[in-house]
């Protein structure tokens, strides 16, 4: 019998920023615009190197600030280019004006947020506050847990963004410091297979400029009494619809990735040891590794704990999360950011909304601010607090980690 020889996997050792750069290179983007910022800088240096080495045939331009970065990419995307940038923290804040305009124009960009805590006090360290501050602007937001997920997801992001039912920009978020600089083994997919996965290049999106159909983009709409507001409403509804459509597209794209490359990443929410679980943690990003270890230790002690990792954060997979959490007695949500005015974490609020039809009590835990490490011990404390909540079922205050420990 003839054995079918599988091609030998191509492993590389790299950090999270390099993994993202490899993905961008494999996605064969046309245009990269950048402004360096810690902890993103090395990512764009890898891209500059890949372009200089001839591995990626893209244009790269270092401009005078992030506001110009996204403006440059809007011009490029309007001309039909596949585009990329990465930023974070104050850079993302400076980018906000063109950032909020991108989804409305339905431009299918991909941008990495190498998440960083926001001012003040000044901090260059990891935290989700930057990405969370733009969660309602209309970009799809996906959070990665590990290096392989960064590489795979960044490629998948192009197929999601460019899908005709979606046509929205995508932020692929990976945690500053913990993922940007953590080094590990990553499997590099075959370039031809990635090209086949992404399919024929299609620039026929909403506002791509077309010589046969000349148009000026984004005129000022008129005020009340004229057709302006109605046009605006149709645009807004279309954007919302694209967001909702993306839930199915994200699932379909992840499934196809798994079929072609043999690696399956949970597209919306990953359920970890949730069979028969009575308590559940809800996590986001790289903290999930330590949280899974804490779950394993608690399980070894006989505690029935599971975990739900939210990967796709915008649109929020409320139905999927509610399904996964349905059997438990209490939920503890761990955020690496805060929601000012609610004195809790934003993912906690989303989880509450997803659970509104159920009777399950939930609590908010905030940790990992400004680069603080959320350790297995911290998660053990969270599990303990969650067990107490399951028993007492009375509302509890937000649990702040890393303040004294």
């Amino acid at each position: 019998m003839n054995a079918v020889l599988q091609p030998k996997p191509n492993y590389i050792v790299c950090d999270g920023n390099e993994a993202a750069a490899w993905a961008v290179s494999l996605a064969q983007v046309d245009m990269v615009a950048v402004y360096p910022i810690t902890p993103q800088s090395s990512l764009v240096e890898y891209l500059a190197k890949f372009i200089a080495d001839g591995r990626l045939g893209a244009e790269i331009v270092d401009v005078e600030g992030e506001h110009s970065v996204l403006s440059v990419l809007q011009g490029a995307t309007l001309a039909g280019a596949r585009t990329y940038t990465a930023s974070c923290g104050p850079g993302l804040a400076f980018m906000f004006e063109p950032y909020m305009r991108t989804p409305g124009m339905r431009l299918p960009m991909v941008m990495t947020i190498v998440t960083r805590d926001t001012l003040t006090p000044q901090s260059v360290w990891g935290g989700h506050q930057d990405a969370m501050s733009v969660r309602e602007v209309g970009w799809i937001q996906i959070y990665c847990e590990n290096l392989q997920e960064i590489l795979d997801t960044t490629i998948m992001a192009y197929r999601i963004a460019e899908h005709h039912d979606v046509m929205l920009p995508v932020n692929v978020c990976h945690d500053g410091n913990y993922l940007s600089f953590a080094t590990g083994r990553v499997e590099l997919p075959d370039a031809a297979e990635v090209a086949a996965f992404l399919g024929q290049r299609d620039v026929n999106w909403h506002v791509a400029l077309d010589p046969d159909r000349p148009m000026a983009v984004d005129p000022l709409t008129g005020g009340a009494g004229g057709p302006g507001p109605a046009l605006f409403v149709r645009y807004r509804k279309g954007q919302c619809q694209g967001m909702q459509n993306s839930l199915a597209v994200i699932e379909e794209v992840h499934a196809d990735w798994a079929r072609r490359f043999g690696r399956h990443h949970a597209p919306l929410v990953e359920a970890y040891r949730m069979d028969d679980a009575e308590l559940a943690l809800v996590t986001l990003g790289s903290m999930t590794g330590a949280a899974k270890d804490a779950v394993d230790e608690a399980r070894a002690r006989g505690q029935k704990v599971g975990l739900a990792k939210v990967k796709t954060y915008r649109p929020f997979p409320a139905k999927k999360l509610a399904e996964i959490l349905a059997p438990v007695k209490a939920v503890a949500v761990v955020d690496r950011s805060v929601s000012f005015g609610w004195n809790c974490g934003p993912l906690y609020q989303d989880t509450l909304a997803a659970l509104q039809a159920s009777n399950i009590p939930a609590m908010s835990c905030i940790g990992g601010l400004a680069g603080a490490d959320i350790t297995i011990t911290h998660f053990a404390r969270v599990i303990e607090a969650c067990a107490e909540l399951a028993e007492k079922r009375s509302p509890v205050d937000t649990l702040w980690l890393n303040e004294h420990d």
Partner: protein
Amino acid sequence: MNSPNDIHPLTKKDFESDQDVRWCPGCGDYSVLAQVQKILPTLGIARENFAFISGIGCSSRFPYYMETYGMHSIHGRAPAIATGLKLSRPELSVWVVTGDGDALAIGGNHFIHAMRRNIGLKIILLNNRIYGLTKGQYSPTSEMGKRTKSTPMGSIDRPFSPVALALGAGATFVARSVDSDVKHVASMLERAAAHKGTAFVEILQNCVVFNDDAYGALSNKATRADAGVFLEHGKPLVFGKDRNKGIKLSGWSPELVTLGENAVSEADLVVHDEKAANGGLAFFLSQLENPQFPVPLGVFRDLEEPAYEELNKAMAEGARATKGPGDLGRLLNGGETWTIK
């Protein structure tokens, strides 16, 4: 009346904060910090009336090390924040410390408007021609062809001359110094401190880690006399180890000449005039660069013009003098109405 300084004369030590200075060993920023701390006690200004505002970058750590009021602000926005401070408290001595990335890339807009507005800010730009804090990408002052981590094939961006940009934006005081010549740095800072309106000082500063030796010719004892020319008001542009070289105007272009050769004498050379109302000479000087020409060091331009904060005060006082003190109630209930047809 005695000022607080007469009772307790200030010293350099009074301006040194308790923070450990954390620039790389050998960084040019140290010498600038030392000179700033040295001249401030001589200005006759109480310590609490100084404020140092910075943006983001290595240079922007400056306020940490000053025992004065200060703010480590947003990338590129220090001139804007300092403008707000100066307008609300015109009696303060407000200093901005910035770099080539902070002032000329992300903060270019605020930089030019601070220059044209002529508001009483002292702006020190530490120009190392590289992004140091983000570990070595090219900056808006990096030379063409420069290979960095972000330009592995060499930069194709044409660099800014900070001095030319400041002049073009209408600055009333523009000077340049080099970090290795600490006495000259101190003298330029003193001149800036004495100026009314925006005072801009570019300091050529060595980044020992990511762009070492960018100003080697200007700092090396053996070459510096030939690599730079000191600008002195009313004096001809003479330079060189043997003080026998000069700059002559040939048409609208500079020409390097040797005194005594081809019958050239000092009388043929360009004579510096920092007070010239026409900016042509200052701009001409800003175009001189190594290696073809010596780099001009000193005051390019120093004009006496009204400062923005003075005009602002005069405008408000003038309005009060002609219309009397403001009355919000009267304004709201006043008779100035119109009909939309």
